């Protein structure tokens, strides 16, 4: 089965049809998705800033990471569920879209980077090139996820 025929089949299922005829569901689910991204992104940026000695300096890096990294993990399931609803609503718009795959690949990579940074934060090692670069990469990956997510609306599915 190709992606196109799968999308076609999914868009004809009862849940997809229900969302398509109920106008408010997509904007409402997108709003929850965005609010959750806000919580996740701010938690990630607070940790990344602290790695560079900025932001919450009154706490140690380990304290900041132990407090905010779990917030990132807590947001992910909500984002996956709301994202899944949006895919079910408009499979053709998303599943054939290069921007969607860039978003998913970036997500997988940033999960690994975040876990690495959390371990680094707990190790109490001094800041060196690798964690500094990965903190920057983490922000860039979250930015890529947000930007490519928005660009799904503008890039043609193939």
């Amino acid at each position, binding site marked *: 089965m190709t992606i196109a025929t799968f999308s076609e089949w999914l868009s004809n299922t009862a849940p997809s049809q229900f969302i398509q005829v109920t106008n408010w569901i997509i*904007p409402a689910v997108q*709003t929850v998705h965005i*609010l959750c*991204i*806000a919580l996740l992104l*701010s938690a990630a940026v*607070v940790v990344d800033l602290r790695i560079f000695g900025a932001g919450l300096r009154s706490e140690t890096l380990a304290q900041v990471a132990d407090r905010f990294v779990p917030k990132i993990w807590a947001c992910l399931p909500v984002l996956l569920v709301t994202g899944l609803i949006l895919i079910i609503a408009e499979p053709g718009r998303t599943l054939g879209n290069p921007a969607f795959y860039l978003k998913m690949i970036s997500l997988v990579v940033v999960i690994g980077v975040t876990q690495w940074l959390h371990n680094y934060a707990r190790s109490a090692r001094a800041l060196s090139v690798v964690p500094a670069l990965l903190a920057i990469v983490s922000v860039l990956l979250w*930015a890529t996820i947000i*930007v490519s997510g928005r660009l799904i609306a503008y890039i043609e599915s193939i």
Partner: protein
Amino acid sequence: MIHSFAEWLQSLPLAVLVSESWFPQVESAHVFALTLFLGLLITVDLRLVGWGSQHMRFTQLSDQLLPWTWLAFGCAAVTGGLLFMANATTYVDNVPFQAKMALLVLAGLNMGFFQFVTFRGVAAWDDRPATGAARWAGITSLVLWTAIVTFGRWIGFV
């Protein structure tokens, strides 16, 4: 009056440039900036309401996070202004957009009142969960900003 202003704004070269070439990119930057702003603001608001960061003094948290919060807000305001310019004549008649602007004014008034009136009594609740007016400022902020994001997302659906 407002319509002729919108027409003038939309006819500016910068507005034409955004409208014809850069709208998706500016919109993506707007989403990145606003989610970062919102997440940081929510962290400070929740401290007021009595949820999270209770081991820190309120002023300690706000002094360390608010500069970054305002930086993100500035980026969201600039990108939002560019998006508005690009389609000004449409947005001035868009009801969710009008609601979003009205709520932004209320959120500003809420912050102003908190900053210049309520905050004078910070010594009484700096090291504990806020009560009374300070707590209500946090609750009001959370409600208003959630509504602002909701109406913001709705702009594209009418």
